[in-house]
């Protein structure tokens, strides 16, 4: 498989006027502005293979949206090269955008006061989609996203989740090779979220669409992506499979224990007691402890009378929070 997206040493600086404090400085500032350079992306390089679903993650303000915007041709980087599907996005904008679809989760691409289907028809004209192909795609989108009933209604009457489904459909009418999703599940309820995820997977499988998505919902990442790219403070910190990261933290377990009687003090070698309340205690593995259930039962039952216990690994969110902390983001 060939790499469809190549990002090499991309830097993006923004020049922003600097605010000054104090009355006189403000007046001075009004006439002569000082600017500050913000480095949104610093030497970012990565490549994405055709047909991959890539999760692009990082804390707020890390540069995720900036990267998406460069990839979709909206922004021009300060330096570096980017070739997507053989084209430089910001140079041949009109040719380039024919093959991409974009959903910015917080913005809308559909027309506000007309029925959704009218917006679709217009997009059909704009992308010059042949009639038969349009019909086929629309039918497929209708059945996969279950939006048939929504199409006759004006966008302003739709709920957030309904809107998002329509937005997704709109970005796929022309069957783009590459789909950029900037927080596609933001604000969606559980059912819609699952539907959207299934749909993304489906498109990827059926059409071989390469999908790049940014999200703060780690379940999206876990459910969808084969690969993640972690960015923080404008730098790429990790790229590879999410499983690997999970493995790295998989040794860390939390154990909730219920005792048969009240104990005033609980301690166990190799474990840290996080919480203890007479009959109940929460333990955590210390960094060097390898958790093993049989060993644990033996060890704890020697000291205490145990009724029940429950072991849990770190949640994906916790793993990510740890990861961010580790990289000092």
């Amino acid at each position, binding site marked *: 498989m060939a790499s469809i997206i190549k990002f090499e040493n991309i830097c993006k600086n*923004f020049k922003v006027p600097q605010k000054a404090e104090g009355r006189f400085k403000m007046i001075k500032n009004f006439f002569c502005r000082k600017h500050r350079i913000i480095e949104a992306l610093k030497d970012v390089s990565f490549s994405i293979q055709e047909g991959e679903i890539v999760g692009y993650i990082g804390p707020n303000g890390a540069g995720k949206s900036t990267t998406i*915007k460069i990839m979709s041709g909206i922004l021009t980087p300060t330096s570096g090269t980017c070739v997507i599907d053989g084209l430089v996005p910001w140079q041949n904008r009109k040719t380039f*955008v024919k093959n991409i679809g*974009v959903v910015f989760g917080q*913005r809308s691409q559909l027309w*506000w006061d*007309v029925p959704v289907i*009218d917006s679709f028809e217009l997009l059909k*004209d704009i*992308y010059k989609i042949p009639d038969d192909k349009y019909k086929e795609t629309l039918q497929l989108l209708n059945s996969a996203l279950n939006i048939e009933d929504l199409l006759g209604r004006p966008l302003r009457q739709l709920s957030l989740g309904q809107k998002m489904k329509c937005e997704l459909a709109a970005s796929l009418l022309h069957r783009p090779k590459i789909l950029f999703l900037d927080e596609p599940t933001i604000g969606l309820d559980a059912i819609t979220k699952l539907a959207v995820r299934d749909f993304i997977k489906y498109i990827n499988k059926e059409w071989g669409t390469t999908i790049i998505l940014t999200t703060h919902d780690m379940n999206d990442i876990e459910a969808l992506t084969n690969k993640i790219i972690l960015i923080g403070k404008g730098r790429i910190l990790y790229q590879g499979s999410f499983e690997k990261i999970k493995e790295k933290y998989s040794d860390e377990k939390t154990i909730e224990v219920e005792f048969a009687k009240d104990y005033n003090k609980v301690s166990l070698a190799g474990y840290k007691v996080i919480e203890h309340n007479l009959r109940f205690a929460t333990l955590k593995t210390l960094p060097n402890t390898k958790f093993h259930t049989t060993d644990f039962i033996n060890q704890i039952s020697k000291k205490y009378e145990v009724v029940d216990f429950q072991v849990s690994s770190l949640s994906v969110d916790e793993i990510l929070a740890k990861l961010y902390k580790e990289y000092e983001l």
Partner: protein
Amino acid sequence: MKSYWGIFKMEFKGELQYRAKALSGIATQLFWGLLQIYLYTAFLNSGSVDGFSISQMVSYIWLGQAFFALRYVTMPKRVGKEIVNGNVCYKFVRPINIYNQWYVEGIGQKFAATLLRFLPIIVIGFLLPGNLSLSLPVSVGAFFLFLFGLILGLLMSHAFAMLAVYLTFKTLSEKGSIGIVSAIVNMFGGLFIPLPLLPQALQDVLKYLPFSFITDLPLRIYIGNVGIVDGLVLMAIGVVWLIAIIAIGKLLIGGALKKTVVQGG
């Protein structure tokens, strides 16, 4: 071309939904038209203006009010908002020229707005008694030239609006930008004061400037204040102006788009 036609239809449809807005527009225009007629009748009665009789003035005002939506320079709907809130980024990801897209959007909106409003005002104008009545065009030829002039006016008025779009890119203030552009265009285009009432020297200059082509010229052709031959010559000048203003707008907006930074989420 098909895509532009699609955009035009879309905006046209969207605008047609706002019927209450159109009704209130018609009411305002009728009231305003009567007010202007009484005011300028008083002026004309106490003096005279060459080649601009009271009945011509009345027709000029009624037609001006009937096609108010066409002649009044406004921002295309949403564009200002799109620029300020960053939704403009979706415009970038379509395989279509951004200036043309906005231009056609605005034309569609204006066309629909005009279509919804002009007829009742024209009909009422014709039905009003005596001195308040709208007259028929001076000749069939003048009428057709008037119609052609209105189309030119529509294209011109919106070419100016696109300059305000450019200013919005620079200032991020939609109201301020359209305020500056519309103040100039509406003043010198005869929207506030009919141009035939201005001093002759000023009129001689203004008739060659692009502002008068928006509606002043077609209205004058209708009432016979400008002859058909003169009208044709002036309109040719108007077409050149139109091309020039669109070209300037394209250049400016093209430059602004290159520098655009869409911030945030």
